């Protein structure tokens, strides 16, 4: 299966990681067969706008990753509306009966939004992952008055900000003590909580949802774990996403919380994974990580593509993420871990423009900018360095 020069490459999943890999393969001179398959019918599009401009602008259309002709121009056989069902004997088996044999395979099937038990049985409930989800949510937001968002991660916070900017009453609930605790840590998370409250959001942290309530088959609110009943007419469930690996059952791959890979993004001989679905081995710590950020997907897709064609290079990224909420642009580099010490590295919290550095074992492990894009970019090189170097000009 893995000769020196691949002639047939198959990529399953045509979103940020898969498309980036396909383009990178052609950029690097791969001239063999290249098939890019996806279960969705839409031309590959951007997901980040789905929680932002797509919800707030009534006529916003999908933002295509590339125009349609770019795929044919690069001899990328884009097969949409076909679901991969099985990986067996060096081929991907699709739901239309077709088998796609490969010398190299990239798994980039992403994640599926988790649902709240029972939400499908009620009208007026939403998850947000695809263009179709976004369109449906946008339409229903037009008629809604009280929105309830379960989950204050990146997606929940952005949907909250979008719904609030449409003038709706929004309640945001999460059992964590602050919003976006995982990405920002407790101090920045606390500032984000202040921002949402200042914008009039009914933010209930350290609160869990006990059950959903319905009236005449329509969502009517929730009961919280501290006994309160909160009425609402539209529910958005943003409690995270599960890696889409069901189709790989029986393939022999390690599928614990994603497609497990080595430090080269390799899941098995000739088989790679990239993007939201990939749980790869970090070379320095030996830890397995899975990152759900837009830029990471493109980077990892391109990296896996290079590894498919040539000498294996370790994947050792400094992931970048961003989140736009109200007038605030939050951007970050690196990995924020529990217990890391936050230190202001530029600007001042009071002024609403600053960069927070995170320190662990005396070194800078992450940076988060708050309306400080330029400062953040200039400090990026300090990641990995001792904390004393933060102050250096």
């Amino acid at each position, binding site marked *: 299966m893995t000769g020196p020069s691949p002639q047939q490459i198959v990529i399953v999943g045509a979103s940020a990681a898969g498309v980036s890999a396909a383009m990178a393969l052609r950029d690097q001179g791969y001239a063999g067969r290249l098939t890019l398959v996806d279960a969705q019918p839409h031309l590959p599009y951007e997901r*980040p706008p789905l929680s932002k401009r797509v919800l707030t602008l009534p006529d916003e259309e999908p*933002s295509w990753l590339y125009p349609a002709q770019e795929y044919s121009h690069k001899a990328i056989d884009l097969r949409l509306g076909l679901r991969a069902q099985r990986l067996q004997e060096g081929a991907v088996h699709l739901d239309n009966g077709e088998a796609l044999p490969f010398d190299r395979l990239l798994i980039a099937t992403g994640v599926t939004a988790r649902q709240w038990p029972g939400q499908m049985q009620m009208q007026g409930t939403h998850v947000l992952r695809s263009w179709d989800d976004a369109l449906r949510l946008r339409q229903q937001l037009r008629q809604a008055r009280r929105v309830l968002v379960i989950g204050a991660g990146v997606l929940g916070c952005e949907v909250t900000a979008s719904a609030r900017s449409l003038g709706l009453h929004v309640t945001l609930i999460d059992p964590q003590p602050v919003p976006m605790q995982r990405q920002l840590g407790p101090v920045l998370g606390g500032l984000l909580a202040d921002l949402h409250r200042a914008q009039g959001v009914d933010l209930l942290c350290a609160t869990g949802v006990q059950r959903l309530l319905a009236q005449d088959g329509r969502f009517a609110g929730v009961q919280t774990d501290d006994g309160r009943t909160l009425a609402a007419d539209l529910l958005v469930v943003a409690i995270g996403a599960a890696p889409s690996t069901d189709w790989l059952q029986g393939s022999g791959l390690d599928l614990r919380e994603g497609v497990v890979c080595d430090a080269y993004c390799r899941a098995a001989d000739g088989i790679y994974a990239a993007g939201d679905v990939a749980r790869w081995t970090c070379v320095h710590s030996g830890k397995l990580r899975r990152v759900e950020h837009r830029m990471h997907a493109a980077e990892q897709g391109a990296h896996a593509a290079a590894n498919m064609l040539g000498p294996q290079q370790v994947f050792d990224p400094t992931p970048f993420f*961003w989140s736009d909420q109200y007038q605030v642009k939050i951007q970050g580099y690196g990995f924020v871990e529990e217990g890391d010490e936050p230190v202001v590295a530029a600007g001042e919290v009071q002024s609403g423009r600053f960069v927070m550095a995170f320190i662990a074992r005396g070194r800078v492990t992450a940076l988060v900018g708050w309306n400080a894009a*330029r400062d953040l*970019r200039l400090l*990026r090189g300090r990641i990995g360095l001792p904390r004393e170097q933060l102050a250096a000009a």
Partner: protein
Amino acid sequence: MNKQLGIFQVVVEDHKCVGAGQCVVVAPEVFDQRDEDGMVVLLQAQPDPALRPAVEKAVRLCPALAIRIEDR
């Protein structure tokens, strides 16, 4: 004729920009970021042909795919 001379145009769709600044990191002669919001500033729409590899890298790295190269 332009293609032979290596002349190319850089086109930026600002509304797509998310302020990641990766373009500035790889091609600082061609791109900068606005101080107030980190949005891209195109310094040269028709850079020196020698800068093409750097600009191509910026095109691929941009998380919003807001940059393109046009050979006129």
